[in-house]
C-alpha cells in the first residue's frame, strides 16, 4: 500500500516535471493548470504515503534514507505551495519540480522496508528535530531555485538579449531577490533550531551535546554559509547576483552533505 502510494506520487511528480518544462516554452493557461493539478495530486498521494508509514511504524517516517529523501521532497513541495499562494510565481515550478523529481527518484531506488527503531532514538526529539531540519533545508532548496532564476534573468537584462519567452515569464529581478531573501530568512532559523534540538537530543540519547559527527560538521558549515549570506546582505548590501550565487552554493553543499555522508556511512546519523 505504502509502496503503491509512493510510486503513484512519483509518477505524478514526473508528469508534472515534464509539463513544467513544456510550460517554459508555451503560453497556455491550461498547461499551468495541468501542472498544478499534477503536483497537487502527487502531493496528496505523497502525504498519504507518509501518513501510512507513520501509522505502520508508530513514529514519524524519517528513519531511513528512503524516508528522509522522500520527506525532504515533500517539504520542498509544501513550501513551494505556500510560496505560490503568496507570490504566484508559477514559473518557479519549472525550476523546482525537476529537483523534486530527482530526489524522489533517488528515494525510490532505496530500500523501503520499515525497520524497528532503536529505543535510543525513540523520543519526541525525533519528530521535532527532523521536521525542523527538513523544512529548513527545503526552504534552502527553493532559494536555490529562485537563485537560479535570478541568474538567468540577470543574464538576460545585463546582456541585453531580451524578448525570449523565458525572459518574459520570469518575474522582475527585485521580486526574485526578495523571494530569495525571504526563503533564507525562513530557512536559517529553522536550521538553527534543528542544530539546537539535535544537540539537546544527542545529550539525552548519548549524554553529549556535540561529538563532531560528520553531519554535525556539515550542518554547522551550512549554517555558517547562510549566516554569511544574511550578514553580507544586511551589512555590505550583498544582494542580487551575489546573494543568488551564495544560495546556490549553499544548497549544493547541503546536497553534497546529504548524499555524501550516506556514502561514507559513518557517524550517528546512520539512518539518514
Amino acid at each position, binding site marked *: 500500500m505504502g509502496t503503491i502510494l509512493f510510486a503513484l506520487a512519483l509518477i505524478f511528480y514526473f508528469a508534472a516535471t515534464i509539463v513544467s518544462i513544456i510550460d517554459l516554452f508555451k*503560453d497556455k493557461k491550461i498547461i499551468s493548470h495541468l501542472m498544478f493539478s499534477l503536483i497537487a495530486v502527487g502531493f496528496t498521494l505523497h502525504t498519504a504515503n507518509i501518513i501510512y508509514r507513520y501509522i505502520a511504524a508508530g513514529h514519524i517516517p524519517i528513519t531511513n534514507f528512503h524516508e528522509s529523501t522522500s520527506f525532504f521532497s515533500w517539504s520542498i513541495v509544501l513550501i513551494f505551495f505556500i510560496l505560490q499562494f503568496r507570490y504566484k510565481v508559477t514559473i518557479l515550478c519549472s525550476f523546482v519540480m525537476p529537483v523534486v523529481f530527482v530526489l524522489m527518484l533517488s528515494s525510490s531506488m532505496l530500500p523501503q522496508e520499515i525497520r524497528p527503531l532503536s529505543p535510543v532514538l525513540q523520543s519526541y526529539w525525533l519528530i521535532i528535530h527532523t521536521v525542523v531540519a527538513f523544512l529548513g533545508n527545503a526552504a534552502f532548496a527553493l532559494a536555490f531555485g529562485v537563485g537560479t532564476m535570478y541568474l538567468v*534573468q540577470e543574464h*538576460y*537584462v*545585463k546582456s*541585453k538579449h*531580451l*524578448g525570449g519567452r523565458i*525572459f*518574459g515569464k*520570469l*518575474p*522582475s*529581478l*527585485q*521580486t526574485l531577490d*526578495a523571494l530569495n531573501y525571504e526563503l533564507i530568512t525562513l530557512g536559517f532559523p529553522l536550521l538553527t533550531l534543528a542544530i539546537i534540538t539535535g544537540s539537546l537530543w544527542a545529550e539525552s540519547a548519548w549524554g553529549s551535546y556535540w561529538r563532531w559527527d560528520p553531519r554535525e560538521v556539515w550542518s554547522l558549515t551550512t549554517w555558517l554559509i547562510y549566516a554569511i549570506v544574511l550578514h553580507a546582505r544586511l551589512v*555590505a*548590501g*550583498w*544582494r*542580487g*547576483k*551575489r546573494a543568488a550565487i551564495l544560495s546556490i552554493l549553499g544548497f549544493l553543499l547541503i546536497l553534497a552533505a546529504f548524499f555524501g555522508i550516506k556514502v561514507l556511512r559513518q557517524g550517528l546519523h546512520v539512518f539518514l
Partner: protein
Amino acid sequence: MKIIVVGLNHNTADVEVREKVAFNESRLEEGLRRFRELPEVEEAVILSTCNRVELYANVKDTVKASESIKTFLSEFHDINRASLDKALYIHDDVNAIRHIFRVASSLDSMVIGEPQILGQLKEAFEIALEKKMTGILLNRLMKKAISVAKRVRRETRIAENAVSISFAAVELAKKIFTDLSEKVFMLLGAGEMAELAARHLMRNGVKEVIVANRSYGRACELAKEFNGRPVKLDDFLQEMVRSDIVICSTGAPHYILLKDQMQRVMKDRKQRPVFLIDISVPRNIDPKINDLDNVYLYNIDDLQGIVDANMFERKKEAEKAEKIIEEEIEPFLKWLSSLDSVPTIVALREKAEEIKREEFEKLMNRFPDMEEGQKKAIEYMASAIMNKLIHPPTVALKEDPEDKDLMIAIIKKLYGIEEYEKEGK
C-alpha cells in the same frame, strides 16, 4: 448580398488626403446616414481613424456601388475625385472579408499588432448598430472580425513586446523592479526623446521625480510639468544615491558619469539596483558602468536593438495570424452562402404551414362536433406529415451543395413557392 470595402490608409494616402477624408465625430453620423441612403447600399459601417478611413457595406452590385460610394466620398468631403481615386482601394467578396479580418487583427496597421485598432473598429460598429445602419450580414461580419482579432491576440504573440523606445524602457524597468510606484526617477538633462520616455514612465506611476538640467530655469519648468523637484546639474551625483531609474540626455559632448563615481554611488545605495538609460548622443554615461553589479545601463542603440528585435518577432507572429485569418474565412463564407437558401427554406415552410392550416380548417368545418382530443390528434398528424415532407429538401438546401443555385431553382419550381418569396421580401 455582397460585401464591399472602400477605403484608404497610411500606405495609399498621405496625411493631407487622410485628413480630408476622415469623418470627424461631429459629421460621422451624418456621413453614415448619407452613405446608407445610397441606392446600392443596404448596410453600412464607417471606420475612421487617423491612419485609415474605410467604408464597409452590404451592396447589391459591387461595380455600381463602388462608383456611387466614391462619388459620395468626394462630394461629402469636397475633395477632388482624381486624387481620391488614386488613394482608394476597393475589396469585395472574400477579399473584403479578409481585409476586415486583417484590419481588426492589426495586421494592416502601421505598427503591426498595435492594440488601438480593435477598439476603434468596435466603436465604429457600435455606432452603426445603434443608428440601425447594419443588418444580418455586417452584424455577423463585424462580430466575427472582432472575435478573430481576439483569437489572433490570444494565439499569437503579435501584440507582445514593446516596439517603441519609450515602451521598451518601461518594459525593462518592470523586469528590474517589482513595483515602479515605489521608485524614484531622475531625468538628467532634457531632450525630446528623454521627455517622451519620462512621460511614459510617469504614466506607469513613480514615487518621486527629480529633474536635473544644465539650465536651472529649464529644470524648474520641467519639474513643474512632471510634478517633481528641480536640482542643479552639478548636484546630480548626490541625487543618484536616491534615484532608482535615471534617464540621461544632456547635451554634454563627454561622459558625465564615470565608473568609479558610480561605484561610490552604489556603495552609498547599499547596492540597491539602479536602471540607467542613456539616450544622449554622444553618450553621457561610461558604458563600463554596466559591468558593475546591480547596475543596468542601456543606451539608445541597446533600446533600438530591442525594438528592432521585437518588431521582427511581431512580423513572424503576423504570419501565424494570417493563417488564423484564412482558417476563419472559410466558415464565414459557408455561412454567407447558406444565406442564399434561407429565404427558400422559410418560404417552403410557410407554404407547407398554410396548406396544413387550410386543410385543417376545412375538416373542422365539415365535422364541427369533433372532440377536443380528436382535434389535437388530427392536427398532430398533419404537422408530422408536413414536417416529414419538407425535411429532405430543407436538409438538401442547408447542406451547401455545389450547384446550390440550381437546387434552389428546382425546389422553388417543384413546390411552387416563387410568389411566396417575393411577398416575403
